[in-house]
């Protein structure tokens, strides 16, 4: 019985993944499947909403690592929004803010995608 789930929403051409529960080596495959699904459907503008994510270990962080380059090569991005402080601390510990666009709210992530689209 997994205590982790991923919900899908769309905002225009942007996919929003709502993470809920605890992301560890057992549940990381569910996030992997969710990001893979976005890719299969050729959605490369992805926002991960971490408002209800209670926990993350390095196995969870590894999923983001495995996909970010490929998504960016397709002209997209994975933006990470609304992390709880205790979860953000783990991202920060490994230097993820250097590599990923981590923002405070989903709205901010959406507007960054829109701004990039208008500039492009």
């Amino acid at each position, binding site marked *: 019985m997994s205590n982790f789930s991923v919900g899908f929403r769309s905002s225009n051409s942007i996919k929003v993944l709502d993470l809920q529960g605890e992301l*560890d*080596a057992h549940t990381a495959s569910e996030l992997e499947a969710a990001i893979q699904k976005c890719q299969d459907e050729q959605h490369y503008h992805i926002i991960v909403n971490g408002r209800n994510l209670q926990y993350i270990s390095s196995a969870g962080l590894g999923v983001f690592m*495995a996909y970010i380059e490929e998504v960016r090569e397709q002209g997209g991005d994975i933006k990470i929004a609304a992390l709880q402080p*205790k979860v953000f601390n783990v991202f920060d*510990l490994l230097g993820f803010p*250097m590599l990923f666009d981590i923002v405070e709210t989903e709205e901010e992530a959406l507007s960054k995608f829109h701004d990039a689209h208008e500039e492009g």
Partner: protein
Amino acid sequence: MARSTYTLTIPSSTRFLEDARQFVETHAQEAEFADTAVEQFKIAVDEACTNIIEHAYKGNEDHHIDITIIIDTDRFTVRIRDEGESFDPTSYKEPNLMELAKKRRAGGFGVHIMRRLMDRVEYRTRGNVNEVRLTKFRNAEHRRNGDQA
């Protein structure tokens, strides 16, 4: 305060990581560690057990992992034992985030996280038993083996 010890044995499967985290959370809270420290214990124990499952036991779920919490007046130690392939900490290379992203590699962060979150991370192997000890001191003066500023 006398020394207290608590033990949990889990099968070598990621399904039981949550149980390991809950076990350490319960006792770290009882030992009156701050929420931040409790969270750090949960992550460190998770990373240690994940490494044992994936590397020492190579994904074979038929083994077990023994987790013992030792609470002393000045410190809280989690001792984790396995009987799989031993880990040589001297062979460990700190991961480079940018390089891993380029290679689309996902792993190698566990040891780094444990070392960052705990005051001491010690590995030893006796016979066919490997042990990692994760320790946090109550008094900040003991932190990082005494080598902090």
